[in-house]
């Protein structure tokens, strides 16, 4: 079990507990849910704001979070059946990516076009969090409509990487990953369309899981690319992700694409603790050229550890993966161009009137979208509109769908040889804020290793694999499993995690800098 010197219960120690540890302490009534929630709210207040703050949160949900925590405490205090029936994670607070709609808090999707909008309904995953009585700490920052790999495309300013405040926390779910990495929340929800959970996990030294497509309801996640989007857990340990996955997963009648299967016991899988005889495949195309040396080193180290644990390492080839990024940048913008059409100023959100006559509906829609969307969103809408246009559809969207089928076949062939595939999650460690902002292609290349899983609908998990030699920043290791075999990720992930911790002398995040000093210097205006 992961530990961060967390024997005590003082506020500063509390926040270093994993969700599983908090759950244990809450159940044993060593701490109250209000104390736990308040400790995280205090941490948010200490490190999130100001010029040099992490800025993981767009909205902090103090009152409601504390009310839910108090309710959990009351139920526990009263004892009886109600206390018995409390969910294991009851009272464990969580942060929610601001792409997921919540009643009682604003949902912006990181966009001006939704600034101030309150959803009249809860996303299915949010309903499940509420049913488990997990206090929602607030809504986390993201690239606008989840379009980006650095969270710099948020209309409300970037999130900073807790490892180095001048670096990006990954994207689009940089807010959720940074919140968890900065101990502002033990758990968070993310969404992953091309790597938006896993790549931020990699560059912040946290765990992130993209479940099998359909494994978690998308109802209430503002769609970017419907056939690729998936909600998933963000945490500091593999077990914690399994615990959260178990809360949010399962069939939802409000999402036609959600799988009918009952959810496997993922927590049990994370507790197996043995991978002897499992076949683990290295995807030839997902490492080597284009990957930072420090990333390669950590990746090779992980392979060594897996071998030592009794796994058989096999090499597999997925020749069509080289087309994945190109095909992704046709399918994703195509679906996004249609999904984002509803933001027109007619029914909700921003409405901008044209400055001159005539005041037609087309011009109001145009003015609203021109003012409300940022450049990256516009870029993708234009790309997608073009790709779907008559005369281009077959060449672009049609071809991309064929590539998708080829990628699925590559996965099928690979999984015939291996139980789980492994690769670096991202080709590099966290880059500097602003470094790739003006180079969309360089930005897109960050997702080269994560995109194939979305294209095929298979699950992926990223866990911290140590720090890169050259810059001391976290490196992510990605595990991939066949569709509906998410349990394998947790089984292998938990074993690798414990081996890595033994090698590094504890969790990677234990060596992250102390933020309370960093965020107040050198700018210091809080």
């Amino acid at each position, binding site marked *: 079990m992961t530990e961060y010197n967390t024997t005590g219960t003082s506020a500063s120690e509390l926040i270093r507990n994993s969700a599983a540890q908090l759950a244990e302490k809450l159940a044993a009534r060593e701490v109250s849910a209000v104390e736990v929630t308040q400790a995280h709210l205090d941490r948010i207040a200490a490190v999130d704001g100001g010029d040099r703050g992490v800025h993981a949160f767009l909205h902090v949900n103090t009152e409601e979070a504390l009310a839910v925590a108090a309710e959990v405490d009351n139920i526990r205090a009263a004892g009886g059946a109600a206390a018995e029936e409390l969910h294991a994670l009851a009272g464990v607070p969580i942060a929610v990516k601001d792409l997921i709609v919540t009643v009682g808090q604003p949902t912006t999707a990181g966009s001006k076009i939704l600034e101030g909008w309150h*959803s009249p309904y809860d996303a299915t995953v949010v309903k499940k969090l509420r049913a488990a009585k997990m206090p929602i700490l607030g809504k986390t920052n993201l690239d606008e409509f989840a379009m980006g790999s650095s969270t710099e495309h948020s209309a409300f300013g970037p999130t900073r990487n807790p490892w180095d405040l001048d670096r990006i926390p990954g994207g689009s779910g940089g807010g959720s990953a940074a919140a968890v990495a900065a101990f502002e929340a033990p758990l968070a929800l993310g969404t992953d369309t091309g790597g938006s959970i896993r790549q931020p996990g990699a560059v912040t030294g946290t765990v992130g899981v993209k479940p099998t497509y359909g494994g978690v309801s998308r*109802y209430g996640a503002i769609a970017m690319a419907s*056939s690729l989007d998936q909600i998933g857990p963000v945490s500091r340990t593999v077990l914690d992700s399994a615990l959260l996955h178990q809360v949010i997963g399962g069939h939802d009648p409000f999402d036609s694409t959600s799988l009918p299967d009952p959810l496997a016991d993922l927590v049990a899988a994370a507790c197996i603790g043995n991978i002897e005889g499992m076949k683990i495949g290295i995807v030839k195309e997902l490492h080597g050229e284009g990957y930072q040396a420090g990333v390669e080193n950590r990746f090779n180290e992980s392979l060594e550890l897996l071998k030592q644990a009794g796994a058989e390492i096999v090499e597999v080839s997925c020749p069509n993966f080289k087309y994945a990024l190109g095909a992704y940048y046709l399918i994703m913008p195509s679906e996004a161009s249609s999904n984002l059409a509803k933001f027109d100023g007619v029914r909700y959100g921003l409405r901008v009137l044209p400055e001159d006559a005539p005041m037609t509906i087309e011009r109001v*829609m145009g003015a609203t979208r021109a003012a409300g969307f940022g450049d990256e969103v516009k870029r993708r809408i234009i790309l997608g509109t073009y790709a779907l246009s008559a005369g281009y559809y077959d060449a672009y969207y049609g071809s991309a769908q064929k590539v998708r089928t080829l990628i699925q076949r590559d996965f099928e062939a690979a999984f015939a040889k291996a139980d789980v595939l492994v690769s670096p999650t991202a080709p590099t460690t966290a880059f500097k804020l602003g470094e790739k902002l003006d180079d969309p292609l360089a930005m897109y290349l960050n997702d080269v290793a994560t995109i194939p899983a979305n294209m095929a609908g298979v699950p992926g998990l990223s866990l911290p694999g140590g720090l890169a030699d050259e810059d001391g920043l976290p490196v992510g290791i990605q595990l991939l499993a066949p569709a509906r075999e998410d349990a394998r990720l947790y089984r292998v992930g938990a074993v690798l995690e414990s081996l890595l911790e033994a090698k590094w002398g504890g969790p990677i995040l234990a060596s992250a800098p102390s933020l309370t000093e960093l965020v107040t210097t050198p700018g210091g205006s809080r």
Partner: protein
Amino acid sequence: MSDPILTFDEAMEKYDPVLGFEVHVELNTKTKMFSSAPNVFGDEPNTNVNEVDLGMPGVLPVLNKTAVESSIKIGLALNCKIAEYCRFARKNYFYPDTPKNFQTSQYDEPIAYDGYLDIELSDGTVFRVEIERAHMEEDAGKLTHMGGSAGRIQGADYSLVDYNRAGVPLVEIVTKPIQGAGSRAPELAKAYVAAVREIVKNLGVSDARMERGNVRCDANVSLRPHGRERFGIRSETKNVNSLRAVEHAVRYEIQRHAAVLDSGEPVVQETRHWHEDTRTTTSGRAKSDADDYRYFPEPDLVPVVASREWVEELRATLPEPPAERRKRLQADWGYSDLEFRDVVNAGVMDEIEETIAAGATASVARKWWMGEIVGRAKNADVDPGQLGVAPATIVELNKLVEDGKINNKMATEVLDGVLAGEGTPAEIVEKRGLAVVSDDGPLLEAIDAALAAQPDVANKIRGGKVQAIGAIVGGVMKATRGQADAGRVRELILEKLGVEA
């Protein structure tokens, strides 16, 4: 400014019309196509909506299974093949009545395709209309344009939008080009839409009320010179929403196209708006191949898989097709072809069936509906069925006549009373004092007077010329102001004169 037109006969002399129809049928499912909001007509605006119908961020569609069943039933009733696997697509366009700014529809994978419908025309010939496809889609909301523009969006001060209709399940039935109808084209147009309406009503899958927009027709018309293969350029007249309007619109468009072609100008491919008041169309939006809806498969829905078992189960539930039903009813009722066609054309077949079920004979039912009610409905400009005469009323009325309580002339008066809402036939007879005089006392007095007034005639009858009795009966009827039972009067006269009938 109205367009120049040729007369219909001139147009027919020179050109051959080709028709095509897109009929939208609103299904009467309890909930909408992709949401759990109620599918109800006529409620307060924007009350039958939830987050899905409003296209709120994050929502997803869930397909209504009953709507799929209804669509398959429609496909089967139109003799279509049912796709084993089909998908929805997004039709992308920005318009404020479409909450997501795309319509979830079917594009190249309709649930039903390759069917036909045999249409019986008034001259008794049967015309086969081939069905290209029937596909599922969702309806849009309803826009009401306010101020300064006579209900059109151009020039409106502002527009109101009601999303109650947004997401109502629709089946769009598309014909193949209909050739060879010639001068019967307008009649065929009306008969085709009537047949589709009849089928969906008979299936119970739609309320099929055209005045509520449950069945809406877009009529495509093009002309080509006689003998030419290639189709002319078509116009699409939108939302022609009554059977009569369909006939008139097709007729008008044929006349208008003929005038355009005669002038040497090309016909413009465009949508046309139908105006019931002037019975003309005006130019709408130019429609060209440049319309780009950027269709792509709807990623939020899974494909519809219609197993053969399911299709056969649904087929087994289908009611008797209207055409077969007509054959059966004609045989049961013993009507001649002409009589039956008149009944069908008058639109009172259902009513006659119900009246017979209520206890009338086939000939009595026909006599009342065709002889009395159809004419009154025409004067009132409504469908006969909507006039408010219940089958039981006719049975009661007829019984009053048969029992000799009232005569035929009085019966029509009683019918007027029923239509005026004065009550049941018996009540009206009572209120209006219409009972036939059946007490022999007053009749005998009147007979004596009549015989005395016409002694010659009385003698003729006594002499065996019974046919002459009419004059005496007439006199009695006159004296009793028509309230006497003529049959009884006749009996009494013969009795009085001691003549055997």
